[in-house]
């Protein structure tokens, strides 16, 4: 496997409808960069794409260790796709540790490209390989291509005068070039990106371009690759597209919502994985009337947002599970004072610190129930990276129209992964202007309109001076009240207000037939895997439908009816049955659950297996 001839040979090209590949290497190897370049190029080429970046939990795990492996998976297709793919067709492993941690996801007979330069005794030991897998038959079930990637890279850039370290650093781009060849991708987009990224350092720019081309030419000329693959353009709806991650979409959704209601945003948050990117994004958009504050802690962040909401801005805060736990007392204050407030929870594996870089859907109960007292809030979840955009708009609309905190549930997978987004026109969105009261003669802080919503009177308005706070309010006046009947009444009013939101949200739709054997239920980021499984099952002739729930509180008014029309209901969630309990409790049905808490999204095959299991009865 060590001698590689480089004579030009006749190569075949095979068509495929889709492929899933994964770049894996040490966290210092630039795998995220290679992956996102491949994503961009594929999207620009016209494929539908779905990605799954995987970061090591440790910020600087020792190089070459299992804990330090970083990966980036891309599913690209000529058809509409919803998931980053269950298994990978091609794996690029930059060192033994990356091979060890990723091999189990490679399909049998799949392409395995390894950087043979790194398969030395020290690295093999770090990866806990007693023998070199390249020299045994351990990998015989795969098409193994051992390429001395580092050596080739250094060779390609040798006359540019780079240090050995700088030269070797281009090896991710070399491997990217090789994979571009393998999947017949154009190099232009990445070359342009390199040029602008290293505009100030021509030497490095040249080196990266050389490495990219060298990788591509190696594929072209080396005898070892007899076949390359072509994945044709997808037939996506016409329009202008870009790639978008969930956290980017959330930031843009907030900005759009702010425009639509004519209120500025005050975004206060404390850095936490995987939500910090929203803060990073928004901090660039001050010209959109967005003020960002990096608060001293999670509690201060939510409190600043509440103070801003009281003052007439849209107060927004975001975090992940542990930070949300800290904010909950203040969310209760938001419920009591009936102020608009957006709390974004980019969920990650818990409890406690858990696995910060790994996604889970284990904060549903926390969002619904995690406060003292009878404390209902609206809860909405984003189905995909691009859906974070509309979800943020919906959340702001409900928050200002119903004077309530709204939880937006996303997760580490949805927040960080990318997919093509058909760029909307700003003019396509209906404004929802906010009207603050101004007439002192009729003003009562806790009087309600027919939906049960109190007025949003803001400081600076003469004659409407009033006081609010966390102590129970007397109905209408908002003065302090410890009256027992009033408390019961106010609890009822707050609950009724949240229930009334059901009037504003569309009825629950069902994908597939309106009745049948199995109803798959999903919420949030599990949408893609469940939708794909539903399609597959239906193609096999199974009577399966899919209900994806966007609003988790309140439920759309017809959810109970939908559930009744199926023999079996299976609720698929990356937790141990949180929505399942809520649905069982609310609708008294024997809903099954598909549960997984491994810090990874569902595989389509897992959902299909569950469908088979419940169908068998």
């Amino acid at each position, binding site marked *: 496997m060590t001698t590689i001839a480089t004579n030009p040979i006749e190569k075949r090209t095979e068509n495929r409808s889709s492929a899933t590949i994964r770049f894996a290497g040490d966290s210092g190897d630039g795998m995220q960069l290679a992956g996102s370049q491949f994503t*961009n190029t594929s*999207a*620009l080429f*016209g494929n539908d794409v779905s990605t799954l970046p995987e970061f090591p939990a440790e910020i600087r795990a020792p190089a070459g260790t299992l804990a330090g492996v970083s990966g980036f998976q891309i599913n690209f297709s000529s058809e509409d796709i919803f998931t980053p793919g269950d298994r990978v067709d091609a794996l690029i492993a930059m060192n033994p540790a990356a091979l060890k941690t990723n091999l189990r996801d490679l399909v049998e007979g799949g392409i395995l490209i390894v950087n043979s330069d790194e398969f030395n005794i020290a690295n093999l030991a770090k990866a806990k390989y007693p023998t070199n897998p390249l020299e045994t038959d351990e990998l015989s079930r795969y098409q193994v291509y051992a390429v001395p990637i580092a050596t080739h890279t250094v060779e390609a850039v040798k006359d540019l005068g780079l240090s050995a370290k700088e030269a070797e650093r281009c090896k991710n781009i070399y491997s990217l070039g090789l994979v571009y060849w393998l999947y017949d991708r154009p190099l232009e*987009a990445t070359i342009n990106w390199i040029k602008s990224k290293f505009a100030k350092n021509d030497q490095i720019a040249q080196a990266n371009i050389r490495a990219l081309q060298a990788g591509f030419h190696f594929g072209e000329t080396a005898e070892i690759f007899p076949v390359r693959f072509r994945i044709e353009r997808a037939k*996506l*709806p*016409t*329009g*202008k*597209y*870009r*790639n978008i991650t969930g956290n980017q979409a959330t930031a843009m959704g907030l*900005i759009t919502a702010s*425009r639509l209601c004519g209120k*500025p945003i*005050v975004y206060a948050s404390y850095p936490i994985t995987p939500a910090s990117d929203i803060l990073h994004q928004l901090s660039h958009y*001050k*010209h*959109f*009337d967005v*003020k960002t*504050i990096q*608060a*001293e*802690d999670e*509690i*201060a*962040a939510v*409190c*600043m947002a*509440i*103070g*801003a909401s009281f*003052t*007439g*801005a849209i*107060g927004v805060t975001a975090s992940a599970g542990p930070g949300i736990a800290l904010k909950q*007392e*203040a969310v209760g*204050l938001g419920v009591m*004072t009936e102020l608009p407030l957006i709390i974004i929870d980019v969920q990650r594996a818990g409890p406690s610190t858990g696995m910060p870089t790994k996604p889970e859907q284990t904060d549903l109960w926390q969002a619904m129930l995690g406060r003292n007292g009878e404390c209902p809030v609206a809860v909405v979840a984003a189905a995909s990276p691009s859906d974070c955009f509309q979800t943020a708009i919906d959340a702001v609309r409900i928050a200002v129209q119903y004077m309530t905190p709204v939880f937006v549930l996303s997760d580490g997978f949805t927040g960080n992964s990318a997919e093509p987004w*058909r*760029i909307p*026109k*700003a003019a396509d969105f209906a404004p929802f202007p906010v009207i603050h009261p101004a007439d002192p003669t009729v003003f009562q802080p806790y009087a309600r309109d027919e939906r049960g919503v109190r007025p949003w009177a803001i*400081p*600076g*308005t*003469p*004659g*409407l*001076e*009033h*006081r*609010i*706070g*966390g*102590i129970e309010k007397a109905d209408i006046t908002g003065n*302090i009240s410890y009256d027992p009947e009033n408390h019961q009444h106010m609890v009822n009013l707050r609950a009724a207000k949240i229930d009334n939101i059901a009037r504003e949200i569309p009825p629950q739709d069902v994908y597939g037939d309106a009745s049948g054997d199995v109803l798959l239920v999903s919420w949030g980021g599990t949408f893609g895997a469940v939708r794909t499984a539903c399609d597959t099952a239906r193609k096999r002739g199974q009577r399966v439908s899919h209900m994806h729930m966007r609003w988790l509180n309140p439920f759309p008014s017809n959810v109970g009816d939908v559930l009744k029309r199926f023999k079996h209901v299976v609720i698929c969630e990356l937790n141990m049955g949180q929505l399942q309990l809520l649905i069982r409790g609310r609708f008294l049905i024997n809903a099954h659950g598909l549960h997984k808490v491994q810090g990874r999204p569902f595989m389509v095959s897992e959902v299909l297996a569950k469908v088979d299991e419940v169908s068998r009865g």
Partner: protein
Amino acid sequence: MTTASAPLTPKDLKSDQEVRWCPGCGDYSILAQTQKVLADIGIDRANTVFVSGIGCSSRFPYYMNTYGFHSIHGRAPAIATGVKCANPQLDVWVVTGDGDGLSIGAGQLLHAIRRNISLKILLFNNRIYGLTKGQYSPTSEQGKRTASTPLGSIDPPVNPLSFALGVGATFVGRAIDVDIKSLQLVLKRAAAHRGTAFVEIYQDCNVYNHKAFEFATDRNTKEDHIVYLEHGKPLIFGKDRKKGVRLNGFTPEVVDLAGTPADDLLIHDESAHSPALAFLLAQMKFPSMPEPMGVLRCVESTTYEHMLEDQMATARRQSGAGDLDKLFSQGDTWEVE
């Protein structure tokens, strides 16, 4: 600070809510003096917001006929920061206590002060937990016997002024609930300050910690136990103003004026760039030293809200008012036909 058209009276600043502190509580006086001072200044009620946390003192906003927010324990500085950032035109006051501000909310207080955001923070220090019925507080003297410390508390107390100075306060003052004149003066100065104004007010909790500040309020002895600070003036105090404070190295000491040349005395400089003098004053404690009242420090520095607005304006100038369609199309795009 905008001036309302009709002259404002303290009565205009009273809300319609019945004041519910214990009879004899020092909070009554602070409320009355605050209403007096704000009426004198002629504040615009519509542009004034009082924010509080939890505790007896934190009921304050309910009694002020301005905008008010009675929030949660310790978090008033953060809520107030949100208010001020959202609308820098508002005058924002924070009312807190020793437990609210220096125990559960010490983090929020620290960060509000270090940002130098224009909040006027009044910390009512009664050295006890009143609302929860009499546990020792972070400012209680060591050895305090309370419901939760029958054998005496073992935590050393925190000094609120030193804390505020330590985190960079640009305005630090102290007053006493019943010392009406000096309380009014400090409140007036705080109201005029740009940046965070931190004021500690000695407040008598006559139910759980009565006479905690008797040394500073007893008609017969108080003059020997406190010293009123005046900018540019020597520190002179005592019943017949016969005592002064002098620096011996870094240590202040009390001297008899009779035997001390006048220019030996410590001259107060509230605007000194270095907080060292203010810190030294803050450390003067009864009974060995008179405790300082008045303004310890008042310096100008750029405020948080100013810098925030400045960045907003710069962004608007450089990028123009944001265009959503441009925002959506950032980065690589492609057409599907």
